[in-house]
């Protein structure tokens, strides 16, 4: 619970209906889409303008409480979970597209705009927004900026950071800062680049300028069917090595295929297959057929039993729907899931997939894989029922082993879901003390009082401080502020 005085103040800023302090109502904000972590916030505030965000931040910070920004709560790393009774600032009501500047191919929007709705609005100009996370029908651009989200087509088009050209940001001290903007390269330090992917630890973006792309002239979508998942991994590696550049390459494994085919998003994947590989080429019409033919040959050479080609837009969308809704469809197999996000060198895919399957077998767990194969970005979903405590423990062990397996293969702990709460303790697996110190240093420049999304991304015990003197703090260097109550 937050103090009554603060409640009144927030109600004056945002309106009584948009300040939630009732403990029962706050229950629905206790987790994001990764339900393994649950913490009830102290309050939820739903502002509508930059000014309301600014005054909210000031009021909350004045009362010594931490702040957690939240978009649609579709994140998969616990990033929007409020620890220690933090106040959630939700962007659901900041959902207006402020401008679409078609000739200059850019748009300015509030953070609560849904990713797919930006593309829908841009479609009348023949434009679209390229990063397409699988949750794009629900997730918001603000959340995408915080997580530097990717998506299937990032293989060719790159992730969010490549498209954000300007930001209006409310910082922890209540100042409003405009960085970048007008689509041009800003002189000086690349603060936009620094902010994108900061997982709510640097501030809250309240206006976002993004670049749009013209809708490609042509597209070819293939579906390779494999009896062994390793073979599909080999096909991916071969296609990339040969110099082809598909817009997307996605692998959906057997358990996932069966869950999806059972759902309203059935895509026609054969349910007896052990892997389906979706490959898409887009761009100018000329040459597309040739590329698709070459990719088809690589699939057969790697052991595909069949390669289909989407005949029309309807078939193409169905193929994609199955892939994009796969995460939600896992609920058909088990009530809970833990999804990982490790990224490995593509050439190691066949071995890693085999290793993951072995770990699953050893702990007697179902592991369903659906992932951005072209990027080597794995999404093993460990399925379980949190009411089964023994299973819960096995999940933890298996999860750790899978992570270690990927790191040992030269991979990293997250490709696109962010570190958040879930993976912060894995950060020392890939970064040494000097790198972590540098990150802490940058974080404290933006947030000296440790009020913006504390407890996320970096493990607390690695923060340099007098109590934790891994190295001598330089004179005048910022040290960690006391943990908020």
């Amino acid at each position, binding site marked *: 619970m937050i103090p009554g005085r603060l409640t009144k103040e927030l109600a004056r800023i945002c309106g009584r209906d948009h300040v939630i302090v009732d403990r029962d*109502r706050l229950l629905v904000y206790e987790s994001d889409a990764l339900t393994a972590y649950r913490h009830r916030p102290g309050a939820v505030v*739903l502002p509508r303008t930059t000014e309301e965000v600014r005054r909210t931040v000031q009021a909350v910070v004045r009362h010594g409480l931490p702040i957690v920004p939240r978009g649609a709560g579709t994140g998969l790393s616990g990033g929007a979970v409020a620890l220690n009774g933090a106040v959630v600032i939700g962007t659901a009501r900041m959902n207006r597209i402020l401008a679409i500047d078609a000739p200059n191919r850019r748009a300015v929007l509030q953070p609560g705009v849904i990713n797919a709705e930006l593309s829908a609005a841009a479609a009348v100009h023949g434009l679209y927004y390229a990063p397409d996370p699988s949750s794009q029908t629900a*997730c918001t651009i603000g959340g995408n900026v915080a997580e530097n989200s990717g998506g299937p087509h990032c293989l060719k088009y790159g992730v969010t950071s490549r498209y954000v050209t300007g930001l209006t940001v409310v910082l922890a001290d209540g100042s409003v800062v405009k960085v970048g903007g007008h689509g041009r390269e800003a002189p000086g330090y690349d603060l936009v680049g620094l902010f994108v992917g900061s997982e709510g630890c640097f501030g809250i973006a309240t206006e976002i300028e993004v670049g749009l792309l013209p809708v490609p002239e042509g597209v070819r979508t293939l579906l390779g069917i494999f009896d062994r998942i390793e073979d599909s991994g080999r096909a991916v590696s071969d296609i990339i090595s040969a110099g082809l550049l598909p817009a997307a390459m996605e692998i959906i494994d057997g358990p996932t295929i069966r869950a999806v085919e059972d759902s309203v998003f059935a895509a026609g994947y054969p349910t007896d297959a052990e892997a389906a590989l979706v490959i898409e080429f887009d761009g100018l019409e000329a040459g597309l057929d040739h590329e698709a033919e070459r990719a088809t040959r690589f699939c057969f050479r790697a052991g595909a039993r069949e390669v289909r080609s989407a005949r029309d837009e309807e078939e193409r969308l169905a193929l994609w729907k199955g892939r994009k809704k796969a995460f*939600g469809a*896992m609920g058909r197999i088990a009530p809970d899931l833990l999804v990982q996000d490790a990224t490995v060198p593509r050439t190691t895919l066949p071995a890693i997939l085999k290793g993951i399957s072995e770990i699953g077998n050893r702990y007697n767990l179902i592991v369903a894989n659906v992932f951005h194969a072209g990027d080597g970005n794995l999404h093993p979903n460990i399925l379980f029922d949190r009411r089964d405590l023994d299973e819960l423990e096995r999940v933890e062990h298996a999860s750790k082993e899978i992570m270690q397996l990927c790191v040992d293969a030269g991979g990293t702990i997250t490709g696109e879901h962010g570190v958040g709460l879930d993976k912060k303790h894995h950060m020392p697996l890939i970064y040494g003390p000097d790198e972590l110190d540098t990150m802490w240093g940058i974080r404290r420049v933006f947030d000296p009082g440790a009020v913006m999304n504390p407890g996320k991304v970096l493990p607390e015990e690695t923060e340099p401080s007098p109590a934790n003197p891994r190295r001598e703090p330089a004179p005048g260097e910022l040290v960690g502020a006391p943990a908020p109550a």
Partner: protein
Amino acid sequence: MSAAADSLAHAVKEQEEGLLNCVHCGFCLPACPTYRRLGDEADSPRGRLHLMRAVVEGRLDPGAEAFQTHIGRCLGCRACEPVCPSGVEYGNLLELARHVGGEARRPSLVTRLLLRVFGTEWLARPAMFAGRAARATGIPALVTRLLAGSAPPRGPRLGLAMLAASGPMRGLHAAPAGSGSPRPGARVRATVGLLTGCVQAGLFSRVNQATARVLEANGYQVVPVEAQGCCGALHAHAGDLEAARAMARRNVEAFEAAGVDYLAMNASGCGAAMAEYGSLLSHDPAMRDRAAAIAGRVRDVSELLAACGPVRGSAVRMKVTWDAPCHLVHAQRVSGPPQAVLDAVPELDVLPLAGATECCGGAGIYGLTHPHLGGWIGGDKVRSVLESGADILVTGNPGCMMQIGAGLRLAGSEVPVLHLVELLDESYRRAGFYAGGTDHGNGSRP
């Protein structure tokens, strides 16, 4: 755990798979009309399911303000169901949650009174008679016109406007109503029993008659079904499951006795409810299979028509737009057939409607229980109808007809609202299909 929570826990135990299927992915959020407007996740399907699960887990009392408010604020439009990758049966769970919520805390007087009237024949008949009599005086229409544009449509003003909007479109029934007997040479395709309903029979008998005529013109034999009654949808949505089950039993017996191939529905709310009689009566071993069998024969009138073409009539040169009732498009997943019916009307200009599959805010008695939010959602629908440029709005459910019709009238618009079958009926009438026949009673023929 309180008795009510225990009851939900018990009820949900059977639906457990359904509730646990929710992995919290959040894909339902943008589909929810209340979340879109309020921005509070407690007013989203995922949030409501989370509250239900909290009750089951004993973390939340079903009498608590949060549970009552947010479960109560749901329109029950079920737009979340088709977008759910895990296939959570939200509609069923909502009814259970309302049932439990109602046990923990009595529903409002307005709610109880209305449900009582609809569910009790000797109350419903005089109420509907009074409604028709009032409508015939022209006073509701006059008052509505005088009040147009003065304030958002809600409260008694909305009630009067809804009554006014339930009337027929001027000029449409100028020609004498004739018989819809199969045209010479046409064979009987199947027998159907028409659910005459409570509101339809009371205020929309013309729609029932048109339904029977267009079905017969397409080769269906419409068989009278005695002893049928209200489908119980409103009661189930409000959580009064016992009353809903009693009505379901009665209808199962009535339609079994009629021995029809299909049950024809011209109110999608009723159609959705009757299509789920099997699960509603799943606890009743004597009725379970019979209910499921009857439910399996429920068809929206547009489905029956689309299954045979339908036969094309004469040109109707009008600009119309189609609003898909939630319980047709989301609950029953029927989206193609209404289009097929519109296509069977030559020279009809069908304009696109922005947000055609979003709830109009009618949602049973929502306009009365949640006047502010219902008015907000209804106002958005009215705006998009006006922006469509259509001269006529066509839909497929009496509740939506009254809600949108009332909203349009209160916004000072002259755009009338028609049921889909009324439009086809007009096309057939112009084609001379009914010439020389006899008129129908309430959707059935002696």
